[in-house]
């Protein structure tokens, strides 16, 4: 009975969602020129960044990104708080499955490659697809792999904490520096260089690298916390 009601309700919701979005193709947006054209234009002309998404995420809407890393930071902190127990079994990790030697060896082999890929992705965030989030998450998956493969692989919580704190602090400080140098928070105050160079785009790659570090540390810490959640 409840399921029937829910299906009916969802049918209505779905109808209106379809109604709102399906016609879009037929009629098109009412405002032809949105902010995107400006972004596409300025990304090349002023920021000298190849990846428009990077320029949006880090520069045009950099404040969102700051908020977002905060959300991640808060989630990691919250996880620790929610799963907090007085007597925490430090060092004991719940093992999902014992890994075979092949997996271990493969993980060991892959791990540096994955981390390197991640670093590459976030360093070249302004030139090619990818960036801080992507690179950070890739690095985190690398750590995840290691954590799963080796029972005794451990990451220092303090180091993670240092990395995430410093990355966050420097992100905000870069914002302040922009304020000090250019007048607005997170303003791109460094010279932008030439397009498609590694060193271009002013603070964009720097901030994105910070984001990468922060996301990587955050996610690794998060996984680490959850993995250490022993069944009581």
């Amino acid at each position, binding site marked *: 009975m409840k399921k029937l009601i829910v299906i009916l309700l969802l049918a209505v919701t779905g109808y*209106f*969602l379809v*109604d*709102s*979005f399906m016609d*879009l193709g037929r009629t098109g*947006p*009412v*405002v*032809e*020129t*949105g*902010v*995107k054209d*400006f*972004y596409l234009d*300025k990304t090349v002309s002023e920021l000298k960044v190849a990846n428009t998404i990077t320029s949006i995420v880090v*520069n*045009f*809407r*950099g*404040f*969102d990104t*700051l*908020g*977002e890393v*905060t*959300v991640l*930071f*808060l*989630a990691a*902190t*919250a996880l*620790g*708080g*929610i799963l*907090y*127990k*007085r007597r925490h079994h430090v060092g004991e990790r719940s093992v999902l499955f014992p890994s075979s030697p092949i997996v271990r060896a493969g993980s060991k082999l892959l791990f540096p490659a994955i981390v390197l890929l991640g670093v590459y992705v976030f360093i070249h965030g302004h030139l090619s697809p990818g960036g801080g989030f992507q690179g950070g998450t890739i690095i985190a998956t690398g750590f995840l792999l290691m954590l799963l493969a080796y029972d005794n692989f451990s990451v220092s919580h*303090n180091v993670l*904490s*240092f990395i*995430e*704190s*410093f990355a*966050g*602090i420097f*992100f*905000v*400080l870069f*914002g302040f520096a*922009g*304020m000090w140098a*250019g*007048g*607005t*928070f*997170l*303003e*791109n105050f460094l010279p932008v260089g030439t397009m498609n160079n590694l060193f271009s785009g002013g603070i964009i790659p720097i901030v994105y690298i910070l984001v990468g570090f922060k996301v990587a540390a955050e996610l690794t810490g998060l996984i680490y916390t959850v993995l250490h959640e022993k069944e009581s």
Partner: protein
Amino acid sequence: MVGSPVLLIAIPLLAAFMIPLLGMIWKELVRIIPGLVLAFMMISSASMLMYVTNNGTIIQTLAGWEAPWGINLVFSPLTAFLATLMTFMGFIVWLYSYRFKRNVDFEPAKKYFIFLMMLVAGAVGIVITGDIFNQFVFIEITGISAYALTAFYTGRNSAEASFKYLLMGALSSSALLIAIAIIYSQLGTLNMADIASKIHLMPAGYKVTALIFFMMGIGIEAEIFPLNGWAPDAYTEAPGPIGAAFAGIVVKAGVYAMVRMVFTLFDVSGAMDILLTIGLITLIVAETAAIRQEKLKRMLAYSSIGQMGLVFVAFGIGTLEGVYAALFLMLNHAIIKPLLFLSGSQLVFNSKEKLIKEVNGLGKYMPFTAVLFALGSFAIVGLPPFAGFWSKLSVLTAAANEGMLLIIALILIVSVIEIVYYFRVVNRIYFFDKAEDLIPQKPRVNAVIAMSVLGAIILIIGFNPDVVSTVLHNASADLMDTPQYIKNVLSAGQSLTN
């Protein structure tokens, strides 16, 4: 003017990132730093409020891009008023819990203060941002802090409350994203002022669908009737000061977001009536639920929801007077309900079940807390000469000027219900005999200071409501004047064509 709007967000973020490091140096810093940050936010926003009152709206662009392209922060009389209120309440809550949380282990205490600070920062962000997606991000910041704070105590039913909150919060963010998607797909912009200036171009059907999704998404934060099931649980299970923070800070941000949508962003004619109806239903359902409660904080929670309903009724009247009344109500509620939560949680501090009947006779043992609770009760039911009366009066006059007699009658009937349940508690505090096995918990000095500041404000506003009327008048005029808002935000850069 001390600071600038962006510092209200950036400084707490910086502090939040620093606290884990600083905590390694000296553990007490974990408790002190948030207080300093909140104090700074309070002072800064108060001074900016003064600046705004004299010199007009501050628009702060971020990352060097003008309004429609970059994100901008709007510090208008309305947002300044709300930001000041929130940061002030945040500071009070910090002050109250400073030593309250001393007996808690280091790790949770660290988290408690970070989350408290981020709760305030997120709520302030919701209010001062000028961009709908940015607002969404701040709603999430506030949300995650709130979930974590709700689940702060292990061993109670706090995880249950937190999970309900999170479930609703997830629905809320989905609805918000869908609404943002509709808006963006039609107008190609995310800036509130830009949307407001172009919304008339949007076909009515899409517009209303977007508005409905927004209403649902924000309604969950603003605790309107069918969406507020999480609220009483979260208020009840969260630590006492956090209940105060929810009532004084988070809900206010939700209400702000809602009215900003309805008044500024959308030009939909029936939206006011919807607000009015929803507000009335919320008011009635919540207050009738409150009268049957057995737990003190849960009763206060329902009462708080009901008051929010009243705020929506006042907004729904739709006139300048109505908005003024609503803001006045928000101000009073933001002062009085935290006082009730703080003193109430002090009263039931040592009882296990936190039942209302466990406050019996505590007036003798904790006279100061009890007096403040009674003062809060008197004020919230709108007895003169306390603060609540003036806001209730202004709501009623605003409604009367529009000829809404039935609504006046309903509001007053509900007020009678409110009186019944608040006075039942006050009677118990003063005129019943204390349960023998209950040891009253004397409030600590900082808690006393926090509560008496709130009590003093109630008396000051009660005896001379004119101290706040200028600010409120400016704020309400600001909310009503959409063209001015658009002009303020978009004045620096020219609006996008057509």
